[in-house]
């Protein structure tokens, strides 16, 4: 069953007086409990597409569905609630709250999602990303990779239906990147849907579905393990 899909999504950005089209008629489907990868060169429109799929941004034309409901038809407040409860985010920019410790950053997501501050769950997630020894550190006291891993823990802690991850492995070495991918894989086995972008070819074997974007168009769709 598809948890979300896009239909002929176009996105224009104003550039000076003209408009620049970044996405051209993108249509894709994401199956629930799968790991979907959006790959493409820098500037191909991956982040833009991810933002539209997660309801952070609206398409210029075309439609976006999440759990059979159209995003553009929803009230903004409802979208906020859906994002808080059913989605987790890992941003391309490491975006931890600087005044909260690693633990608090993760726990804060639970609070936003309206769940109980469950210490065991928070520690479990931090442990999964290999940071059980960095719990009380503040972002400024963590390396870039460590910060990224906190962000991943934060994206999973409230057991969302979908995790959107924008280049989650960019800051990590290949071994660490692999272990993060495995983390996502485990989450997928547990029923979570993961949509991520990357330009790292190594990690794609773990994907279920791979969409290739080139200059805002989907130029290639294939199943994971089919090879490139």
């Amino acid at each position: 069953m598809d948890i979300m899909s896009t239909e002929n999504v176009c996105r224009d950005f104003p550039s000076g007086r003209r408009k620049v089209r970044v996405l051209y008629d993108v249509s894709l489907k994401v199956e629930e409990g799968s790991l979907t990868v959006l790959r493409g060169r820098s500037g191909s429109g991956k982040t833009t597409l991810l933002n539209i799929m997660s309801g952070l941004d609206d398409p210029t034309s075309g439609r976006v569905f999440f759990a059979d409901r159209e995003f553009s038809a929803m009230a903004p407040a409802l979208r906020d609630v859906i994002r808080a409860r059913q989605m987790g985010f890992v941003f391309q920019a490491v975006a931890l709250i600087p005044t909260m410790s690693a633990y608090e950053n993760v726990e804060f997501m639970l609070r936003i999602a309206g769940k109980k501050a469950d210490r065991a769950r928070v520690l479990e997630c931090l442990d999964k990303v290999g940071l059980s020894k960095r719990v009380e550190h503040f972002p400024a006291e963590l390396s870039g990779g460590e910060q990224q891993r906190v962000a991943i823990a934060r994206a999973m802690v409230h057991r969302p239906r979908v995790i959107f991850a924008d280049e989650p492995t960019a800051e990590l070495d290949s071994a660490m990147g692999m272990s993060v991918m495995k983390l996502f894989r485990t989450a997928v086995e547990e029923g979570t849907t993961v949509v991520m972008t990357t330009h790292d070819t190594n990690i794609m074997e773990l994907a279920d579905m791979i969409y290739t974007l080139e200059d805002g168009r989907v130029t290639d769709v294939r199943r994971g393990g089919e090879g490139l």
Partner: protein
Amino acid sequence: MFKLVLRKMLNNKWMVACLLIGSILAVAMVGSIPMYADSVLEEMIHEDLYAYQEQSEDKNYYPAYAGKYLVRRQFSASAESGAEEIEQTSARIAGYVRQLGLDTLSHTTHLVINSVTLVPDEKSFASVNKMTEFHAFSGLNDNIELLYGRLPSSAVTDGVLEVVISRAAERAMDLIMGDTLTVKGTPLGSAIKAVRVVGVFNYKDNRNGYWYGSTSALDKAFVADYDAMTTYCVEREMCVRRVEWMYALRYAQIDLGNIGAVLGTYSYQITEMTKAGNLTFDIPAYNVLVQYVSRETELNIMLLVLQIPILIMLAFYIYMVSKLIVEFDKNEISVLKSRGCRRGQIFTLYLLQSGVISLIALLIGPFLARAACGVLGSSDGFLSFGGAPIRPAVHLKALLYCLAAAVLGVVTMLVPVVPASRTDIVILKRKKARGSGKPLWKKLYLDFILIAVSCYGIYVYGTRQNSVSAGAGSTPIEPLLYLISSLFTLGVALLMLRFYPYLVNSVFKAGEKRWSPVMYSTLTTVARQKGREQFLVIFLIFTITFGLFSASAARTIDKTMVNNVNYYYGAEYSVRGMWYDLTGGVTSGEPANDSTQGYQPLNMEKYTSVNGLYNATKVFRRYGVKLWVGSTFNITADLIATEPAKIYKTLNMPTDTQRTVTTKELCDALAADDHGTLISRAMANAYGLRVGDTFEYTYGSLMKQKLNVVGIFDYWPQYDPLSANNILMIINYDTLAGLANFRLMPYEIWYSRDKSVSTDEIRASFKELGLTLVWEKDAVAELQQRANDVKFRGTNGALTLGFIVIMVVSVMGFIIYWVLSIKSRVLQFGVLRAMGLTGGKVMRMLIGEQIFLSGFAIDVGIVLGTAVSRLFVPLIQLAYTNPTPPQSVLLLAGDYGRLFICIGLMLGVGLSVIGWLISRINVTAAIKLGEE
């Protein structure tokens, strides 16, 4: 290079604008000091000189002129070379006057000739048989008007000298025009044998100071033609007794530019004339100006000191904003450096930027300063502008002050540039990651140091105050005290800031599990964020503390001044009439202490019917009264005898200041017992007297009288408990007057006053009733005069101005803080929004932060402001006026209200800006921001 600077400034346009406003304010504040001082002082010179003139005005004649330059020389009858010497002295004095460089309004050489015995011819009824003086004035003809007759001729024909006489002389000497009198002997020289009156004149009031002194000398004298006198009496025979050279100078020409030179010349000439020995002089302006110069210094110091805290705040503000700009530019600086830009070049870049800002400030500042002077001058109370506005000229001195402020501004702006231009990109990144550690003031324990220093200051001031005791007058320590209070405020504010994070953290910990995401985020931010918010907290604390302090200082000083005047005047209006002794003689002075002479009773009926005055009460004083208390005798005390039932209504004592009973109760007790007495606390303590005790007294020829102590007072008008003469008793006047050996002696009369009747009307009423007064004391007029005092106005104005500037700076600081805080956290807000926190919640989070920071600062400010007021205002008050009886520190609800309105406005503006900024945050763009 310059293009680059302008581009950079445009990039940071808001911050640059804030910096510019701060610089303009600083320049204006500094510039307003000399501008205000000079314009007020300029006014003051003339006012002082004019006041001298008014106060010495003899209503019957012509005013004593403040620009008088009068030199006298006496001659002995036998002097041989008189004519020549007069000539020389004339030249010398003319030279002196030229040296001063002031215009001469009028000038006269006044000759006084030996007294002459005259014999009237048979036809005349003249009563001139005594010695009579002859006078001659150069330039006389233009300054008299002839009532009849003609001006005297300059020639002596047939041995007859022609003279004119004044209207008064005509009456006094029973002369009429045409009368001829024979000169006995040759006191006027051999040529003059007789004198003929050819005219009668009145003084012409040209308002030029020509009639410089009392004209009463001419009431019984002849005025001859000046040339005739010179020719016949001076050159031929030396019979001049005295010559007076009088120059009426245009004192309005004395201003701040030439006062130094004029004073120097005066003092040089005075020394020279004193050395000469035979000259005496009367230059009233000299003393007035000398006094004025010391007042000038005092005013300048006071204004500067009152503004120092504000200037410090402005400097602080400029430094902070400049530092923020540099921080914003850090990346750019690093890039420039990696492209091979040298440190000096980066420094020059900022030098140019601050130069441009200061230049603009310098262009606008002086005009704002001029406006600020309006505030300073028209202020007749704190935040009240009832006085006459001042529109001073923008002169060189003020511009120099502005320039100095601008240069200092440039330096302040450059301070944060030095370390920034040194760092390269590697250090910068590391710094960014690790946070920049403890701020300097925390490491230096600046808060503790400031508090310690200011406490020491209070201690030193306290001990000095005890040794100086009352009447400190206007010692220049009060400015210092003001500084100490600012340091204290800053110290406590910093201390609060040191403990603030712990406080918030404990709130955070207290409910860690329960906090909503909004509260959670707010608390962690407030507790852990380092840096900028300290700027805000200090600003707010300072604003509120300073606001409250300024208000209460100004109010209390105002009130104390009023109280002081009232205390020392006792009644709203009091007079001492002219008394006639039993032989009919007039006494204006007080009779000697041991005098037993009696006086004719005063016509009290007339004194009680003066227009505008009522409750006439007799107040009789006697010093050195002898007492017997128990077995102790030979005690001396001061005595006041009055009418207790009436005096209570007349007394204009501040608030009831007696410690145990009210003044009314005391007066009632005295009224109830004819032989009762009220004694001073000091007297009670010195002789162990208590209510109900008795003692005996006597003075003059009075028999020993027994008195019952019916009350003890702490304060009574004019009574100073700290003085040496603090043994004072108050008794019933009527009982005293009824005693067998009582001699009536002059007493004062105290009145209540109908405020709608002017002082002039009251005076006119006294005159109409035929009552001559030795003196009159008008508390209302005194109050008005004191309120107009420059120092007073300046204090209120400077406090008001400071308050306004601090408010403006705080609002700006507040907005800058929030704008930057939001801008630097756009990414974070974007993430929070993406994570599903609604825009409203993000807004609430920021409001929460605001409440925690500003709320804390406001609370501290209110508590600290009240504390600083209670601590420092009494000391300042003491320095400004002599606080007997003490006035408690005034904190008016209205002032709190006004302050809260200002703060509310500030928060309102801040919140609107936040709302506007938040609504503009675009989530995807925000997230993008962090991508590089």
